[in-house]
């Protein structure tokens, strides 16, 4: 029973059998969308497969891209440098040319929502990297900043809309140099005790997890809904 594996993989939009080293954590929202769709199909409710009701956007392919960036370490004294500096990079090459991007949501998970060990407030700065990273320079030259936000810590997952940035990266892949994330501990410059700052930053580095949720619509599989409405 020779299973025409290659044909079926192509049908799934894959060119070869994936062989992941380890399973990525599946976020709650993807599991919910999967189960909602399975339940609807099982009980015979027909749903629009080209509209993601749970996210309120059109689309029939959802991808969660893991961050492939790396931490940067400043040469300055702890007080004088941010608690955490990270280059975030997301590989958009899996998105096919014919697909239309309808959502790109950056998720920054700062760690569990535990309140038994309240950390200090944090200041988050997110900017676009517009020049390739030069190795002898400790941090990339930050370009356009688009998030400056202070958050109480621990905060759980923060979400940022990157649709326009992702569209630009998808149309001009050479522009995709990633994002530069800096997190400062509010008032860190006047905190007298080093080890607390160090301990706080080390904990943040361990718990930070970044991902990009991308939703696309494949026009070959999804005819324009306006035609359906007509």
């Amino acid at each position, binding site marked *: 029973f020779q299973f025409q594996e290659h044909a079926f993989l192509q049908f799934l939009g894959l060119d070869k059998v994936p062989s*992941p080293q380890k399973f990525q954590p599946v976020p709650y929202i993807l599991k919910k969308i999967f189960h909602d769709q399975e339940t609807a199909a099982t009980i015979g409710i027909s749903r629009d497969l080209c509209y993601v009701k749970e996210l309120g956007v059109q689309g029939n392919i959802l991808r969660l891209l893991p961050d492939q960036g790396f931490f940067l370490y400043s040469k300055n004294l702890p007080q004088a440098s941010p608690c955490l500096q990270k280059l975030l990079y997301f590989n958009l090459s899996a998105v096919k040319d014919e697909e239309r991007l309808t959502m790109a949501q950056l998720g920054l998970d700062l760690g569990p929502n535990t309140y038994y060990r309240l950390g200090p407030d944090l200041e988050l700065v997110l900017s676009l990297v517009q020049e390739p990273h030069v190795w002898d320079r400790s941090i990339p030259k930050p370009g356009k900043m688009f998030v400056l936000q202070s958050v109480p810590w621990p905060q759980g997952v923060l979400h940022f809309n990157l649709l326009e940035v992702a569209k630009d990266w998808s149309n001009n892949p050479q522009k995709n140099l990633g994002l530069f994330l800096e997190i400062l501990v509010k008032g860190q410059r006047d905190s007298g005790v080093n080890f607390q700052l160090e301990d706080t930053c080390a904990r943040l580095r361990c718990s930070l997890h970044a991902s990009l949720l991308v939703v696309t619509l494949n026009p070959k599989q999804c005819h324009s809904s306006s035609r359906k409405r007509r």
Partner: protein
Amino acid sequence: AAIPAPKVSCKNLCHRHQLFINFRDLGWHKWIIAPKGFMANYCHGDCPFSLTTSLNGSNYAFMQALMHVVDPAIPQAVCIPTKLSPISMLYQDNDDNVILRHYEDMVVDECGCG
């Protein structure tokens, strides 16, 4: 008096045959997160004229079955899906991306003569 219908055993008549493909049998459980397998049901069976009205058949199938009786060179009506449902697949690709895709008209729920 009713003309006795030819004795056709039910199992030869057009109906849905169930077939479940377990992704583990193909070694795909290593990259498909959910579901565990895929219902590859199919339609198969005869569409004799005498039963086209009851085998969930279309009007066209009734006419084709009638024509087949008149001229056996005309093929019989065929057993085809009459109700389909989509599936969703949650899987991981070679770039460690987690992908959720919906595929419409993938599972055969009902069959009929068409």
